[in-house]
């Protein structure tokens, strides 16, 4: 059902200096119930030292995309098509041995739940030192010194003693700090952070986010930051990609997307979110319905069953044809630019206050 759209999303969003570029990525899983189209023709670029935010609801394909970059899917059940080029190296067809050299070295990952991402069987210090020993060939002693230095950098008190602790002896925030130390120990060029603060409390989240930002300035890594929280993204990212049902629906700089969003889904997300400074007499405007099943995604624009503005488009266009996401600042929607402009100014902007 997706083969006919093979060539539609190929335009390159930005110039050639992109450090990571993903082109027309498709990830499918065969399950007992049928084929799940988890990612369906996704293209994006990440520049060196910049942060790309990816927002979307659960099941929108944001995590699957990033596991694909590191080649972490089981090839027996997942089929990956498209192109992932990291610093001139093609990753989709790369052999496992090449990917192994990248993981934890050039590309590192911070997972959502640090308790399940850390092994309970080894000490925290050993787990942090391991990638350093593997990728640089350092001795155990050198790796330990480096790991303690990293633990200190991420703000773990008494790093030399804490090196020998097990993950269960750490609190939630400290585990996430240890994960960050592990990810940064080889000075990666690309850091993928998959909902790194979702499991944390707000005060700890604020600490971790600021820490990541400051460390990024020091290490100069590019970050792909995945989250469902638009507030977190506004603080962290330079560029923003909004995903829905395995496709990118809107792309632009954070300022552009949050201040002048162009896609009905982004409008819905922003107006359904209560704000600390928002008008209390203004009701929240939820998006009707619920996210689609990826086993059987809606035809045409995947958002059309929930879209309030589909009447303004020629009949059948939304349900018949997938809207394209043009290069640069763009939204994948059949509404004309004038319509979007007037809907946003008349109906959406007043809600956002």
């Amino acid at each position, binding site marked *: 059902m997706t083969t006919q759209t093979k060539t539609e999303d190929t335009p390159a969003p930005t110039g050639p200096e992109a450090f990571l570029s993903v082109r027309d990525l498709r990830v499918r899983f065969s399950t007992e119930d049928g084929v799940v189209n988890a990612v369906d023709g996704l293209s994006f670029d990440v520049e060196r030292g910049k942060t790309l935010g990816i927002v979307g*609801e*659960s099941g929108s394909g944001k995590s699957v995309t990033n596991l694909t970059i590191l080649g972490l899917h089981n090839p027996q059940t997942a089929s990956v098509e498209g192109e992932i080029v990291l610093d001139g190296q093609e990753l989709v067809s790369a052999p496992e041995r090449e990917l192994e050299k990248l993981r934890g070295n050039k590309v590192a990952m911070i997972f959502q739940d640090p308790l399940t991402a850390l092994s309970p069987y080894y000490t925290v210090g050993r787990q942090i030192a391991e990638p350093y020993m593997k990728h640089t060939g350092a001795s155990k002693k050198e790796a330990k010194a480096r790991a303690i230095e990293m633990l*200190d*950098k*991420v*703000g*773990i*008190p008494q790093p030399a003693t804490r090196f020998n602790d097990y993950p269960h002896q750490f*609190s*939630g*925030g*400290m585990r996430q*700090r240890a994960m960050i130390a592990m990810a940064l120990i080889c000075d990666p060029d690309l850091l993928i952070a998959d909902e790194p603060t979702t499991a944390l*409390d*707000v*005060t*700890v*989240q*604020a*600490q971790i*986010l*600021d*820490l990541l930002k*400051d*460390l990024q*300035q*020091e290490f100069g890594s590019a970050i792909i930051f995945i989250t*469902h*929280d*638009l*507030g*977190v*993204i*506004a*603080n962290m990212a330079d560029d923003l990609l909004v995903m829905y049902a395995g496709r990118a629906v809107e792309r632009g700089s*954070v*300022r552009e997307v*949050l*201040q002048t969003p162009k896609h009905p889904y982004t409008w*819905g*997300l*922003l107006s*359904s*979110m*209560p*704000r*600390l*400074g*928002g008008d*209390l*007499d*203004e*009701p*929240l*405007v*939820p*998006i*009707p319905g*619920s*996210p689609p099943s990826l086993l059987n995604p809606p035809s045409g624009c995947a958002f059309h069953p929930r879209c309030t503005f589909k009447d303004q488009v020629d009949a059948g266009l939304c349900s018949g044809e997938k809207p394209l996401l043009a290069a640069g600042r763009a939204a994948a929607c059949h509404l004309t630019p004038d319509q979007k402009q007037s809907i946003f100014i008349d109906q959406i902007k007043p809600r956002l206050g």
Partner: protein
Amino acid sequence: MSENVTLPKQQDSSGPGNGGEPLLTVEGLQKHFPIYGGFPFKRQVGAVKAVDGVDLTVYPGEALGLVGESGCGKSTTGRLVTRLLEPTGGKITYAGQDITHASRKQLAPIRSEIQMIFQDPFSSLNPRQTVGTIIKSPMEVNGINPPGGREKRVRELLETVGLNPEHYNRFPHEFSGGQRQRIGVARALALEPKLIVADEPVSALDVSIQAQVVNLLQKVQDELGIAFLFIAHDLAVVRHFSQRVAVMYLGKVMEVADRDSLYTRPRHPYTHALLSAVPEADVDSAKKERIRLSGDVPSPIMPPSGCPFRTRCWKAQDKCATDVPPLVQISGNREGHLTACHFPEEPTIAARAEDVVLDPALAALEAERPAKD
């Protein structure tokens, strides 16, 4: 959309001061969970002081928000109020009646008036029962026979919460997360309660679905005049839903006030820290104060002496370690705005001349590069 209902203005003023009789009063409530250890005979070696002296009042028809970080005892408080747990100490008064240690029999008539909505819409519905049975069972247990029969009432309730009454015979797995939460709301409404304890009712839902359920709860509160104890960790959601808000930390209430005072004129340092930590989706929002605490919440097994927040507080002095600050009205605050702090902050959330950064790693990194944005 029928769900878009705003709160009527007059409800904003309901609270202490307008003379109403409180529906629920909680005084010095405590719940200590024992820890057993030792060999070969296990004996109690300590206690998790989950709730350690909570004072709250809920007035009829009012929504009181209860916010705090995980482990601060907000859910336990909710469960104590519904008497799903036996309190260790303190007093719970519901409509003038002391229910702190009331027996099952004494509680029976009250149970139908206090209902609960749970956090996880997946584990709080029995997968082997149909939606009809789930919503009907509170009526069966309490022997309520509404006119026209229970089934008719269930269909009405399904309609109230925005579900199709024809889904009466479906099973929970046929519904999405948001719809399941609606079933939970319908079940809580089945007995026409006076108080609903909603324990994180929207935190398990996707952002676009959260607003649907928040609007539904607001409609319910507005149309049926039910009082809510709304427990959540998301300050923006609580602000949207509650007329009064209480902030909890390590089993104690740190600050309680009407919504406006708490969010714009907070006095307790912890409230300041919480508000400053909330990420805002506004790129150009007015600069607010920046407070970054260090570390996590201490363990409730060995809470700090005196003020529980003192170990992470930038204003802590010797007095904080010895004296527990009472929850009182500080001069200059509105009536009903109570703060438990010896050295309260200025009542503003505007940016400070100097950020409060207590986290050692952050402080070190930022000292190297002082000129940041």
